[in-house]
């Protein structure tokens, strides 16, 4: 499943990085501690977090995530949007909680 379809199913809003939405989502990781995400997320994951500051972009680039989903209606900072656009990392937002977001994505990826 690619990010476009995932965004559609969960009604996610795309903030930036729309060019990367056709990437295949191989899995996901949820976390707000950057070291945890660095250590345990994988290439091809979609990263679910409530961190909205610009440092999330470098983590995502380094880990080669397909995109970042900000939960609980968090708005990414302007710097975050700028960096994500430059690096081609799709940023998506949802009003859903982390628990609900992860649960729904899990069910979609493992029907």
């Amino acid at each position: 499943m690619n990010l476009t379809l995932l965004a559609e199913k969960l009604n996610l809003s795309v903030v930036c990085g729309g060019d990367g939405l056709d990437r295949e989502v191989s899995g996901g990781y949820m976390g707000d501690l950057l070291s945890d995400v660095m250590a345990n997320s994988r290439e091809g994951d979609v990263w679910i977090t409530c961190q909205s500051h610009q440092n999330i972009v470098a983590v995502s680039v380094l880990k080669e995530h397909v995109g970042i989903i900000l939960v609980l209606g968090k708005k990414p900072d302007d710097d975050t949007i700028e960096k994500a656009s430059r690096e081609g990392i799709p940023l998506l937002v949802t009003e859903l909680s982390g628990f609900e977001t992860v649960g729904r994505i899990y069910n979609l990826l493992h029907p």
Partner: protein
Amino acid sequence: MSQGYKFSFPVKGDNFDDAGKASVEIKRFLKGLGITGDVLRRTAIAIYESEVNIISYARQGNINICVTDASILINIRDNGPGITDIEQAMKQGYSTADDHIREMGFGAGMGLFNIKNCSDDFEILSEVNRGTLLKISINR
């Protein structure tokens, strides 16, 4: 350091806006040198955590890398406050980071632990009030 492809990146302390910038550039360089897979993954994690440590605790530091056929050697020097108790600092969850650092999702006390986990050889040399040197070796 032995013969090999060498390069160096300076990192400025307390500059969280650019956290990860050096790591991203270094990873691209290493990819260009044909390093891939688990070796690249472990190297990127070790360098990122080291970079964040410099930014969190030192005024400035340097990431020196030497790539040989056998391994990737990374030396990270900073002029920070040094580590009083290295054994304690290595424990997962132990951190001296302040609230400002923690609010951003750093300072979880996982950095040095992650570096060690990603290294085949890892050594910390530190002198209080002088600085810290991390010596990381990752086999190719």
